[in-house]
Protein backbone atom coordinates (compact mmCIF):
# COMPACT_ATOMS: atom_id res chain seq x y z
CA UNK A 1 0.00 0.00 0.00
CA UNK A 2 1.33 3.41 -0.98
CA UNK A 3 1.68 6.12 1.66
CA UNK A 4 -0.84 8.90 1.45
CA UNK A 5 0.52 12.36 0.84
CA UNK A 6 -1.36 14.91 2.89
CA UNK A 7 -3.50 17.67 1.48
CA UNK A 8 -1.48 20.90 1.55
CA UNK A 9 1.80 19.26 0.54
CA UNK A 10 3.83 20.89 -2.27
CA UNK A 11 3.84 18.32 -5.08
CA UNK A 12 4.61 17.78 -8.75
CA UNK A 13 1.97 16.52 -11.18
CA UNK A 14 2.39 15.14 -14.68
CA UNK A 15 0.14 14.90 -17.68
CA UNK A 16 0.42 13.95 -21.32
CA UNK A 17 -0.70 16.97 -23.35
CA UNK A 18 -0.37 15.44 -26.82
CA UNK A 19 0.12 11.74 -27.52
CA UNK A 20 2.62 10.76 -30.25
CA UNK A 21 -0.19 10.61 -32.83
CA UNK A 22 -1.31 14.15 -32.02
CA UNK A 23 2.03 15.95 -32.42
CA UNK A 24 2.37 18.98 -34.68
CA UNK A 25 3.10 18.20 -38.32
CA UNK A 26 6.45 20.01 -38.33
CA UNK A 27 8.16 18.10 -35.48
CA UNK A 28 11.13 15.91 -36.40
CA UNK A 29 10.86 12.13 -36.42
CA UNK A 30 12.38 11.47 -32.97
CA UNK A 31 10.09 14.00 -31.29
CA UNK A 32 7.04 12.65 -33.11
CA UNK A 33 7.59 9.25 -31.48
CA UNK A 34 7.17 10.58 -27.92
CA UNK A 35 4.31 12.42 -26.23
CA UNK A 36 4.32 16.09 -25.29
CA UNK A 37 4.44 15.92 -21.50
CA UNK A 38 3.69 18.57 -18.92
CA UNK A 39 4.75 18.90 -15.31
CA UNK A 40 3.65 21.56 -12.90
CA UNK A 41 3.93 22.04 -9.13
CA UNK A 42 1.36 23.15 -6.64
CA UNK A 43 -0.23 22.43 -3.31
CA UNK A 44 -2.18 19.17 -3.14
CA UNK A 45 -5.91 19.90 -2.89
CA UNK A 46 -6.84 16.54 -1.26
CA UNK A 47 -4.87 13.65 0.24
CA UNK A 48 -3.46 11.40 -2.48
CA UNK A 49 -0.87 8.73 -3.27
CA UNK A 50 1.85 8.70 -5.90
CA UNK A 51 0.27 7.64 -9.19
CA UNK A 52 -3.18 8.98 -8.29
CA UNK A 53 -5.03 11.45 -10.44
CA UNK A 54 -5.10 14.56 -8.20
CA UNK A 55 -5.81 18.26 -8.18
CA UNK A 56 -3.28 20.90 -7.15
CA UNK A 57 -3.57 24.59 -6.47
CA UNK A 58 -0.70 26.41 -8.18
CA UNK A 59 1.10 29.37 -6.56
CA UNK A 60 -1.22 31.80 -8.36
CA UNK A 61 -4.35 29.91 -7.30
CA UNK A 62 -5.19 27.96 -10.46
CA UNK A 63 -6.55 24.43 -9.99
CA UNK A 64 -4.87 21.88 -12.29
CA UNK A 65 -5.25 18.11 -12.53
CA UNK A 66 -2.67 15.43 -13.27
CA UNK A 67 -0.94 12.33 -12.00
CA UNK A 68 0.84 12.82 -8.69
CA UNK A 69 4.52 12.08 -9.37
CA UNK A 70 6.50 13.62 -6.52
CA UNK A 71 6.08 15.01 -3.03
CA UNK A 72 8.08 18.14 -2.19
CA UNK A 73 10.38 17.48 -5.17
CA UNK A 74 14.03 18.47 -4.84
CA UNK A 75 15.84 20.82 -7.16
CA UNK A 76 18.56 18.50 -8.39
CA UNK A 77 20.55 20.86 -10.61
CA UNK A 78 23.96 21.87 -9.38
CA UNK A 79 27.49 22.17 -10.70
CA UNK A 80 28.87 18.64 -10.61
CA UNK A 81 32.56 17.91 -10.41
CA UNK A 82 35.10 20.42 -11.72
CA UNK A 83 35.86 20.05 -15.43
CA UNK A 84 39.54 19.09 -15.90
CA UNK A 85 39.63 20.83 -19.29
CA UNK A 86 38.81 24.18 -17.65
CA UNK A 87 41.19 23.96 -14.69
CA UNK A 88 44.45 25.01 -16.42
CA UNK A 89 43.00 28.02 -18.29
CA UNK A 90 43.55 30.59 -15.54
CA UNK A 91 47.20 29.71 -15.09
CA UNK A 92 47.76 29.74 -18.85
CA UNK A 93 46.37 33.23 -19.43
CA UNK A 94 48.11 34.65 -16.35
CA UNK A 95 51.39 33.27 -17.75
CA UNK A 96 50.73 35.07 -21.05
CA UNK A 97 50.19 38.35 -19.16
CA UNK A 98 53.36 37.88 -17.08
CA UNK A 99 55.32 37.23 -20.26
CA UNK A 100 53.94 40.47 -21.75
CA UNK A 101 54.86 42.47 -18.63
CA UNK A 102 58.40 41.13 -18.66
CA UNK A 103 58.84 42.44 -22.22
CA UNK A 104 57.55 45.92 -21.46
Amino acid at each position, binding site marked *: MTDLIAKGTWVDIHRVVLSPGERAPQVPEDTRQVPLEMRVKGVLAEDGALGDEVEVVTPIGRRLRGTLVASNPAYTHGFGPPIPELIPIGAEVRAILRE*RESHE
Partner: protein
Amino acid sequence: MSKTLGYEAVMAERAAVMHESVGIDYRRYATGALAFDYERMLADTGYDVETARAVQSRTAVGDTPLVELKNITELVRSLAEPGKGARIFVKDEAANPSGSFKDRRASLSIHEARRRGYEGVVAASSGNYGAAVASQGAKASLRCIVVQEAFDSRGIAQPEIEEKTRACESYGAEVIRLSVGPELFYVFLQVLKETGYFNASLYTPYSVLGIETLGYELAVQTRDEQTGRFPDVVIATHAGGGNVTGTARGLLKAGAADTQMVAASVDLSGLHMASDRDFNRKSFTTGHTGFSLPFTTWPDRSDVPRSAARALRYMDRFVTVTQGEVFYATQVLAELEGMERGPAGNTSLAAAFAIARMLREEQVVVVQETEYTGAGKHPLAQLNLAKRMGIAVERGDPRDNRPGQRIVIPTHPSQIEVVDVDLDRVRRSYLRRALEALPQGERLGAEDLAFLAAETRSSRSYIEEVIHELPGKAG
Protein backbone atom coordinates in the same frame (compact mmCIF):
# COMPACT_ATOMS: atom_id res chain seq x y z
CA MET B 1 -5.29 23.33 -17.63
CA SER B 2 -8.22 21.26 -18.79
CA LYS B 3 -7.89 18.67 -21.51
CA THR B 4 -9.53 20.68 -24.25
CA LEU B 5 -9.17 21.34 -27.91
CA GLY B 6 -6.77 19.57 -30.24
CA TYR B 7 -3.68 21.15 -31.70
CA GLU B 8 -5.19 22.33 -34.98
CA ALA B 9 -8.30 23.77 -33.31
CA VAL B 10 -6.30 25.86 -30.84
CA MET B 11 -3.85 27.06 -33.47
CA ALA B 12 -6.78 28.19 -35.62
CA GLU B 13 -7.81 30.61 -32.88
CA ARG B 14 -4.33 32.04 -32.67
CA ALA B 15 -5.08 35.50 -34.09
CA ALA B 16 -8.05 36.17 -31.82
CA VAL B 17 -6.25 34.98 -28.67
CA MET B 18 -3.20 37.06 -29.53
CA HIS B 19 -5.25 40.17 -30.03
CA GLU B 20 -6.98 39.76 -26.66
CA SER B 21 -3.77 39.04 -24.83
CA VAL B 22 -1.52 41.78 -26.19
CA GLY B 23 -4.04 44.55 -26.65
CA ILE B 24 -2.50 45.66 -29.95
CA ASP B 25 -4.51 45.58 -33.16
CA TYR B 26 -1.67 44.75 -35.50
CA ARG B 27 -3.88 45.11 -38.59
CA ARG B 28 -3.92 48.87 -38.04
CA TYR B 29 -0.28 49.07 -39.06
CA ALA B 30 -0.53 47.33 -42.43
CA THR B 31 0.55 49.64 -45.25
CA GLY B 32 0.87 47.19 -48.14
CA ALA B 33 0.59 43.54 -49.10
CA LEU B 34 3.58 42.80 -46.84
CA ALA B 35 4.52 46.20 -45.49
CA PHE B 36 3.57 47.59 -42.10
CA ASP B 37 4.49 50.78 -40.29
CA TYR B 38 7.09 49.49 -37.85
CA GLU B 39 8.02 52.87 -36.38
CA ARG B 40 4.40 53.84 -35.76
CA MET B 41 3.72 50.47 -34.10
CA LEU B 42 6.55 51.20 -31.65
CA ALA B 43 5.77 54.90 -31.21
CA ASP B 44 2.10 54.26 -30.43
CA THR B 45 3.08 52.57 -27.17
CA GLY B 46 4.23 55.95 -25.83
CA TYR B 47 7.50 54.59 -24.41
CA ASP B 48 10.39 56.75 -25.51
CA VAL B 49 13.77 56.22 -23.85
CA GLU B 50 13.11 58.69 -21.03
CA THR B 51 9.70 57.19 -20.22
CA ALA B 52 11.14 53.68 -20.29
CA ARG B 53 14.00 54.72 -18.00
CA ALA B 54 11.54 56.26 -15.55
CA VAL B 55 9.44 53.08 -15.44
CA GLN B 56 12.51 50.91 -15.05
CA SER B 57 14.10 52.99 -12.31
CA ARG B 58 11.02 52.46 -10.15
CA THR B 59 11.85 48.73 -9.92
CA ALA B 60 15.64 49.14 -9.81
CA VAL B 61 16.05 47.97 -13.39
CA GLY B 62 18.87 49.42 -15.47
CA ASP B 63 21.67 51.88 -14.69
CA THR B 64 24.02 48.93 -14.49
CA PRO B 65 27.80 49.44 -14.30
CA LEU B 66 29.97 49.58 -17.41
CA VAL B 67 33.10 47.69 -16.40
CA GLU B 68 36.42 47.93 -18.21
CA LEU B 69 37.99 44.50 -18.68
CA LYS B 70 41.55 45.71 -18.33
CA ASN B 71 43.22 42.33 -17.95
CA ILE B 72 41.36 40.81 -20.87
CA THR B 73 42.26 43.86 -22.94
CA GLU B 74 45.93 43.28 -22.02
CA LEU B 75 45.58 39.62 -22.94
CA VAL B 76 44.11 40.53 -26.33
CA ARG B 77 46.88 43.10 -26.94
CA SER B 78 49.49 40.43 -26.22
CA LEU B 79 48.07 38.51 -29.20
CA ALA B 80 47.63 41.51 -31.51
CA GLU B 81 49.93 43.29 -33.90
CA PRO B 82 51.66 46.38 -32.40
CA GLY B 83 49.19 49.22 -31.87
CA LYS B 84 46.21 46.86 -32.11
CA GLY B 85 43.87 45.60 -29.39
CA ALA B 86 40.87 47.79 -28.54
CA ARG B 87 39.74 48.50 -24.98
CA ILE B 88 37.03 46.03 -23.96
CA PHE B 89 34.16 46.97 -21.65
CA VAL B 90 31.21 44.95 -20.45
CA LYS B 91 27.79 46.18 -19.38
CA ASP B 92 27.20 44.27 -16.17
CA GLU B 93 23.54 43.48 -16.65
CA ALA B 94 23.73 40.77 -14.00
CA ALA B 95 23.20 43.71 -11.60
CA ASN B 96 19.51 43.85 -12.55
CA PRO B 97 17.00 42.50 -9.98
CA SER B 98 16.61 39.02 -11.48
CA GLY B 99 20.17 38.90 -12.79
CA SER B 100 19.95 39.70 -16.49
CA PHE B 101 19.07 42.39 -19.03
CA LYS B 102 15.74 40.62 -19.48
CA ASP B 103 14.41 42.71 -16.59
CA ARG B 104 14.44 45.64 -19.01
CA ARG B 105 12.19 43.74 -21.40
CA ALA B 106 9.89 42.47 -18.66
CA SER B 107 9.53 45.84 -16.93
CA LEU B 108 7.61 47.59 -19.70
CA SER B 109 5.44 44.51 -20.37
CA ILE B 110 4.49 44.28 -16.72
CA HIS B 111 3.92 48.01 -16.49
CA GLU B 112 1.66 47.82 -19.52
CA ALA B 113 -0.22 44.75 -18.23
CA ARG B 114 -0.94 46.54 -14.98
CA ARG B 115 -1.93 49.79 -16.69
CA ARG B 116 -4.40 47.88 -18.86
CA GLY B 117 -5.91 46.10 -15.87
CA TYR B 118 -4.87 42.52 -16.56
CA GLU B 119 -4.87 40.23 -13.49
CA GLY B 120 -1.84 38.33 -14.60
CA VAL B 121 0.77 37.70 -17.25
CA VAL B 122 1.98 34.66 -19.18
CA ALA B 123 5.46 34.28 -20.66
CA ALA B 124 6.73 31.53 -22.92
CA SER B 125 10.37 31.37 -21.88
CA SER B 126 12.78 28.72 -20.69
CA GLY B 127 15.37 31.31 -19.79
CA ASN B 128 16.12 34.55 -18.04
CA TYR B 129 13.09 36.29 -19.53
CA GLY B 130 10.66 34.04 -17.66
CA ALA B 131 12.41 34.82 -14.39
CA ALA B 132 12.42 38.53 -15.24
CA VAL B 133 8.66 38.47 -15.87
CA ALA B 134 8.13 36.57 -12.62
CA SER B 135 10.31 39.04 -10.71
CA GLN B 136 8.73 42.16 -12.18
CA GLY B 137 5.29 40.54 -11.84
CA ALA B 138 5.93 39.94 -8.14
CA LYS B 139 6.79 43.61 -7.65
CA ALA B 140 3.61 44.64 -9.47
CA SER B 141 1.39 42.13 -7.61
CA LEU B 142 0.43 40.42 -10.88
CA ARG B 143 -0.10 36.68 -11.15
CA CYS B 144 2.48 35.08 -13.37
CA ILE B 145 2.64 31.89 -15.39
CA VAL B 146 5.84 30.84 -17.13
CA VAL B 147 5.73 28.13 -19.80
CA GLN B 148 9.06 26.38 -20.32
CA GLU B 149 10.47 23.73 -22.62
CA ALA B 150 12.29 22.02 -19.79
CA PHE B 151 13.06 18.32 -20.14
CA ASP B 152 13.51 15.56 -22.71
CA SER B 153 11.50 12.34 -23.07
CA ARG B 154 13.82 10.62 -20.58
CA GLY B 155 12.85 13.25 -18.02
CA ILE B 156 16.32 14.84 -18.04
CA ALA B 157 16.03 18.55 -17.39
CA GLN B 158 18.43 20.97 -19.03
CA PRO B 159 20.27 22.29 -15.91
CA GLU B 160 20.10 25.95 -16.87
CA ILE B 161 16.34 25.65 -17.39
CA GLU B 162 15.93 23.83 -14.09
CA GLU B 163 17.62 26.80 -12.45
CA LYS B 164 15.13 29.09 -14.16
CA THR B 165 12.27 26.88 -12.92
CA ARG B 166 13.62 27.33 -9.40
CA ALA B 167 14.02 31.08 -9.84
CA CYS B 168 10.49 31.54 -11.25
CA GLU B 169 9.03 29.44 -8.43
CA SER B 170 10.95 31.48 -5.89
CA TYR B 171 9.24 34.60 -7.26
CA GLY B 172 5.87 32.92 -6.75
CA ALA B 173 5.10 32.07 -10.37
CA GLU B 174 3.30 28.99 -11.67
CA VAL B 175 5.77 27.18 -13.89
CA ILE B 176 4.48 24.84 -16.59
CA ARG B 177 7.37 22.60 -17.65
CA LEU B 178 7.00 20.84 -20.96
CA SER B 179 8.95 18.22 -22.84
CA VAL B 180 10.56 19.13 -26.16
CA GLY B 181 8.60 20.48 -29.08
CA PRO B 182 7.20 23.56 -30.81
CA GLU B 183 3.74 22.72 -29.46
CA LEU B 184 4.77 24.74 -26.43
CA PHE B 185 3.04 27.49 -28.36
CA TYR B 186 -0.17 25.45 -28.35
CA VAL B 187 -0.04 25.10 -24.57
CA PHE B 188 0.82 28.79 -24.26
CA LEU B 189 -2.24 29.77 -26.35
CA GLN B 190 -4.47 27.52 -24.25
CA VAL B 191 -3.20 29.14 -21.06
CA LEU B 192 -3.80 32.63 -22.47
CA LYS B 193 -7.32 31.62 -23.52
CA GLU B 194 -8.16 30.05 -20.16
CA THR B 195 -6.78 32.84 -18.01
CA GLY B 196 -7.33 35.98 -20.10
CA TYR B 197 -3.92 37.14 -18.89
CA PHE B 198 -1.53 39.47 -20.69
CA ASN B 199 0.88 37.90 -23.16
CA ALA B 200 4.28 39.12 -21.97
CA SER B 201 5.81 38.12 -25.27
CA LEU B 202 9.47 38.75 -26.02
CA TYR B 203 8.40 40.21 -29.34
CA THR B 204 5.90 42.96 -28.48
CA PRO B 205 6.94 46.61 -28.81
CA TYR B 206 7.18 46.85 -25.00
CA SER B 207 9.71 44.07 -24.79
CA VAL B 208 11.94 45.61 -27.43
CA LEU B 209 11.56 49.23 -26.31
CA GLY B 210 12.63 48.10 -22.84
CA ILE B 211 16.09 47.32 -24.28
CA GLU B 212 16.57 50.70 -25.90
CA THR B 213 17.60 51.96 -22.47
CA LEU B 214 20.49 49.48 -22.49
CA GLY B 215 21.92 50.77 -25.77
CA TYR B 216 21.32 54.34 -24.70
CA GLU B 217 22.99 53.90 -21.28
CA LEU B 218 26.03 52.13 -22.59
CA ALA B 219 26.61 54.77 -25.27
CA VAL B 220 26.43 57.59 -22.74
CA GLN B 221 28.51 55.74 -20.13
CA THR B 222 31.20 54.88 -22.65
CA ARG B 223 31.50 58.47 -23.82
CA ASP B 224 30.86 60.49 -20.67
CA GLU B 225 32.20 58.28 -17.89
CA GLN B 226 34.89 56.16 -19.48
CA THR B 227 36.50 57.04 -22.79
CA GLY B 228 35.30 60.37 -24.17
CA ARG B 229 33.99 58.64 -27.31
CA PHE B 230 31.08 56.49 -28.31
CA PRO B 231 31.88 52.78 -28.67
CA ASP B 232 33.40 51.82 -32.00
CA VAL B 233 31.80 48.39 -31.76
CA VAL B 234 28.99 47.00 -29.62
CA ILE B 235 28.57 43.23 -29.58
CA ALA B 236 25.23 41.72 -28.58
CA THR B 237 24.46 38.05 -28.09
CA HIS B 238 21.83 37.30 -30.71
CA ALA B 239 18.90 34.88 -30.56
CA GLY B 240 15.34 36.08 -31.22
CA GLY B 241 16.49 39.53 -32.34
CA GLY B 242 15.20 41.74 -29.52
CA ASN B 243 18.61 42.30 -27.98
CA VAL B 244 20.22 43.47 -31.22
CA THR B 245 17.17 45.53 -32.21
CA GLY B 246 16.65 47.31 -28.89
CA THR B 247 20.33 47.93 -28.26
CA ALA B 248 20.94 49.33 -31.74
CA ARG B 249 17.90 51.60 -31.46
CA GLY B 250 19.12 52.86 -28.09
CA LEU B 251 22.56 53.59 -29.53
CA LEU B 252 20.98 55.59 -32.34
CA LYS B 253 18.82 57.52 -29.88
CA ALA B 254 21.95 58.42 -27.90
CA GLY B 255 23.51 59.73 -31.11
CA ALA B 256 26.00 56.89 -31.56
CA ALA B 257 25.22 56.59 -35.25
CA ASP B 258 28.71 55.43 -36.25
CA THR B 259 28.93 52.59 -33.75
CA GLN B 260 29.15 49.22 -35.48
CA MET B 261 26.48 46.80 -34.22
CA VAL B 262 27.68 43.21 -34.17
CA ALA B 263 25.32 40.29 -33.53
CA ALA B 264 27.06 37.21 -32.10
CA SER B 265 25.66 33.69 -31.75
CA VAL B 266 27.00 30.32 -30.68
CA ASP B 267 27.24 28.03 -33.68
CA LEU B 268 24.90 25.07 -33.12
CA SER B 269 24.78 23.96 -36.74
CA GLY B 270 23.78 20.33 -37.15
CA LEU B 271 21.48 20.27 -34.12
CA HIS B 272 17.70 20.39 -34.61
CA MET B 273 15.89 22.78 -32.30
CA ALA B 274 12.72 20.68 -32.09
CA SER B 275 14.54 17.37 -31.65
CA ASP B 276 13.98 15.48 -28.42
CA ARG B 277 17.36 13.80 -28.88
CA ASP B 278 19.28 17.02 -29.53
CA PHE B 279 17.63 18.98 -26.69
CA ASN B 280 20.24 18.09 -24.08
CA ARG B 281 23.12 18.05 -26.55
CA LYS B 282 23.15 21.79 -27.23
CA SER B 283 24.98 22.92 -24.07
CA PHE B 284 23.43 26.38 -24.66
CA THR B 285 19.83 27.38 -24.12
CA THR B 286 19.93 30.65 -26.02
CA GLY B 287 22.16 33.02 -27.95
CA HIS B 288 22.68 30.32 -30.54
CA THR B 289 22.17 29.93 -34.27
CA GLY B 290 19.19 27.64 -33.74
CA PHE B 291 17.25 30.78 -32.86
CA SER B 292 19.23 33.57 -34.48
CA LEU B 293 19.31 32.32 -38.06
CA PRO B 294 15.57 31.58 -38.37
CA PHE B 295 14.57 34.72 -36.47
CA THR B 296 16.86 36.95 -38.55
CA THR B 297 15.55 35.59 -41.82
CA TRP B 298 11.94 35.53 -40.66
CA PRO B 299 11.18 37.60 -37.53
CA ASP B 300 7.42 37.08 -37.74
CA ARG B 301 7.76 33.41 -36.79
CA SER B 302 7.33 34.64 -33.21
CA ASP B 303 4.29 34.49 -30.92
CA VAL B 304 2.85 37.85 -32.06
CA PRO B 305 1.66 38.77 -35.59
CA ARG B 306 4.30 41.47 -36.10
CA SER B 307 7.49 41.06 -34.15
CA ALA B 308 9.06 44.24 -32.84
CA ALA B 309 12.42 42.43 -32.86
CA ARG B 310 13.75 42.89 -36.40
CA ALA B 311 17.49 42.34 -36.12
CA LEU B 312 18.34 42.44 -39.81
CA ARG B 313 17.37 46.12 -39.84
CA TYR B 314 20.09 46.90 -37.34
CA MET B 315 23.05 44.56 -37.59
CA ASP B 316 26.21 45.71 -39.33
CA ARG B 317 27.83 42.34 -38.88
CA PHE B 318 26.67 38.87 -37.78
CA VAL B 319 29.27 36.45 -36.42
CA THR B 320 29.36 33.05 -34.79
CA VAL B 321 31.68 31.56 -32.19
CA THR B 322 31.98 27.97 -31.01
CA GLN B 323 30.68 26.43 -27.80
CA GLY B 324 34.22 25.77 -26.56
CA GLU B 325 35.26 29.37 -27.20
CA VAL B 326 32.37 30.66 -25.06
CA PHE B 327 33.23 28.33 -22.16
CA TYR B 328 36.87 29.45 -22.46
CA ALA B 329 35.88 33.14 -22.40
CA THR B 330 33.66 32.49 -19.36
CA GLN B 331 36.58 30.95 -17.50
CA VAL B 332 38.91 33.81 -18.44
CA LEU B 333 36.34 36.40 -17.31
CA ALA B 334 36.23 34.73 -13.91
CA GLU B 335 39.97 34.26 -13.52
CA LEU B 336 41.30 37.53 -14.98
CA GLU B 337 38.50 39.92 -14.09
CA GLY B 338 37.01 38.32 -10.98
CA MET B 339 33.57 38.27 -12.58
CA GLU B 340 31.76 34.94 -12.59
CA ARG B 341 29.00 35.40 -15.15
CA GLY B 342 27.10 33.60 -17.86
CA PRO B 343 27.81 31.46 -19.73
CA ALA B 344 25.14 32.18 -22.35
CA GLY B 345 25.75 35.93 -22.13
CA ASN B 346 29.43 35.43 -22.79
CA THR B 347 28.90 34.59 -26.42
CA SER B 348 29.55 38.24 -27.27
CA LEU B 349 32.56 38.26 -24.93
CA ALA B 350 34.14 35.41 -26.89
CA ALA B 351 33.51 37.37 -30.09
CA ALA B 352 35.12 40.43 -28.47
CA PHE B 353 38.42 38.54 -28.04
CA ALA B 354 38.65 38.20 -31.81
CA ILE B 355 37.14 41.54 -32.84
CA ALA B 356 39.10 43.76 -30.41
CA ARG B 357 42.33 42.15 -31.55
CA MET B 358 41.88 43.56 -35.07
CA LEU B 359 41.05 47.10 -33.93
CA ARG B 360 43.41 49.91 -32.89
CA GLU B 361 44.32 50.39 -29.21
CA GLU B 362 42.37 53.64 -28.87
CA GLN B 363 39.19 52.04 -30.15
CA VAL B 364 36.47 50.76 -27.83
CA VAL B 365 34.49 47.52 -27.88
CA VAL B 366 31.50 47.09 -25.58
CA VAL B 367 30.16 43.65 -24.73
CA GLN B 368 26.59 44.58 -24.11
CA GLU B 369 25.48 42.19 -21.35
CA THR B 370 26.36 39.77 -18.61
CA GLU B 371 23.96 37.48 -16.78
CA TYR B 372 24.14 35.97 -13.31
CA THR B 373 25.64 32.56 -12.81
CA GLY B 374 24.77 29.82 -10.35
CA ALA B 375 23.80 26.18 -9.97
CA GLY B 376 22.86 24.74 -13.36
CA LYS B 377 23.66 27.99 -15.09
CA HIS B 378 27.37 27.43 -15.29
CA PRO B 379 30.00 25.86 -17.58
CA LEU B 380 30.52 23.06 -15.05
CA ALA B 381 26.85 22.07 -15.17
CA GLN B 382 26.71 22.27 -18.96
CA LEU B 383 29.95 20.38 -19.56
CA ASN B 384 29.05 17.67 -17.04
CA LEU B 385 25.71 17.22 -18.83
CA ALA B 386 27.51 17.15 -22.19
CA LYS B 387 29.78 14.37 -20.96
CA ARG B 388 26.77 12.45 -19.62
CA MET B 389 25.17 12.73 -23.08
CA GLY B 390 28.27 11.19 -24.66
CA ILE B 391 29.74 14.43 -26.02
CA ALA B 392 33.53 14.61 -25.98
CA VAL B 393 34.98 17.57 -24.05
CA GLU B 394 38.61 18.25 -24.90
CA ARG B 395 41.29 20.92 -25.29
CA GLY B 396 42.35 21.70 -28.84
CA ASP B 397 41.68 23.83 -31.88
CA PRO B 398 38.18 25.31 -31.62
CA ARG B 399 37.75 24.82 -35.37
CA ASP B 400 37.37 21.11 -34.52
CA ASN B 401 34.33 21.85 -32.33
CA ARG B 402 31.26 19.87 -33.52
CA PRO B 403 27.97 20.76 -31.83
CA GLY B 404 26.42 17.70 -30.21
CA GLN B 405 29.54 15.58 -30.71
CA ARG B 406 32.65 17.39 -29.51
CA ILE B 407 33.19 20.55 -27.47
CA VAL B 408 36.72 21.82 -28.01
CA ILE B 409 38.07 24.24 -25.41
CA PRO B 410 40.85 26.36 -26.94
CA THR B 411 44.40 25.82 -25.72
CA HIS B 412 45.37 29.45 -26.38
CA PRO B 413 43.37 32.70 -26.63
CA SER B 414 44.82 33.39 -30.08
CA GLN B 415 42.71 30.51 -31.40
CA ILE B 416 39.47 32.39 -30.74
CA GLU B 417 38.01 33.58 -34.02
CA VAL B 418 34.70 34.80 -35.24
CA VAL B 419 33.10 33.36 -38.35
CA ASP B 420 31.12 35.90 -40.36
CA VAL B 421 27.63 34.95 -41.40
CA ASP B 422 27.15 36.08 -45.01
CA LEU B 423 24.59 38.88 -44.67
CA ASP B 424 23.84 38.84 -48.38
CA ARG B 425 22.68 35.25 -48.05
CA VAL B 426 20.67 36.14 -44.95
CA ARG B 427 18.97 38.99 -46.84
CA ARG B 428 18.14 36.74 -49.78
CA SER B 429 16.75 34.15 -47.40
CA TYR B 430 14.65 36.84 -45.71
CA LEU B 431 13.29 38.01 -49.08
CA ARG B 432 12.48 34.46 -50.18
CA ARG B 433 10.46 33.96 -46.98
CA ALA B 434 8.77 37.33 -47.34
CA LEU B 435 7.62 36.52 -50.86
CA GLU B 436 6.29 33.16 -49.71
CA ALA B 437 4.14 35.09 -47.24
CA LEU B 438 2.69 37.29 -49.97
CA PRO B 439 -1.04 36.51 -50.11
CA GLN B 440 -2.22 34.71 -53.23
CA GLY B 441 -3.04 37.13 -56.05
CA GLU B 442 -1.40 40.15 -54.37
CA ARG B 443 1.46 42.07 -55.92
CA LEU B 444 4.22 44.05 -54.29
CA GLY B 445 3.60 47.79 -54.36
CA ALA B 446 5.95 50.70 -53.82
CA GLU B 447 5.29 50.59 -50.06
CA ASP B 448 6.28 46.93 -49.97
CA LEU B 449 9.52 47.51 -51.84
CA ALA B 450 10.44 50.36 -49.48
CA PHE B 451 9.53 48.15 -46.50
CA LEU B 452 11.63 45.23 -47.74
CA ALA B 453 14.57 47.56 -48.33
CA ALA B 454 14.28 48.83 -44.73
CA GLU B 455 13.88 45.30 -43.40
CA THR B 456 17.09 44.17 -45.09
CA ARG B 457 19.02 47.47 -44.86
CA SER B 458 19.37 47.47 -48.60
CA SER B 459 17.90 49.42 -51.47
CA ARG B 460 14.93 49.16 -53.75
CA SER B 461 17.23 48.20 -56.61
CA TYR B 462 18.74 45.38 -54.51
CA ILE B 463 15.25 44.09 -53.69
CA GLU B 464 14.21 44.18 -57.33
CA GLU B 465 17.38 42.42 -58.39
CA VAL B 466 16.98 39.63 -55.81
CA ILE B 467 13.30 39.14 -56.60
CA HIS B 468 14.14 38.93 -60.27
CA GLU B 469 16.66 36.15 -59.54
CA LEU B 470 14.31 34.11 -57.36
CA PRO B 471 12.57 31.17 -58.97
CA GLY B 472 8.81 31.66 -59.21
CA LYS B 473 9.25 35.36 -58.52
CA ALA B 474 6.38 37.59 -57.48
CA GLY B 475 5.77 41.30 -57.68
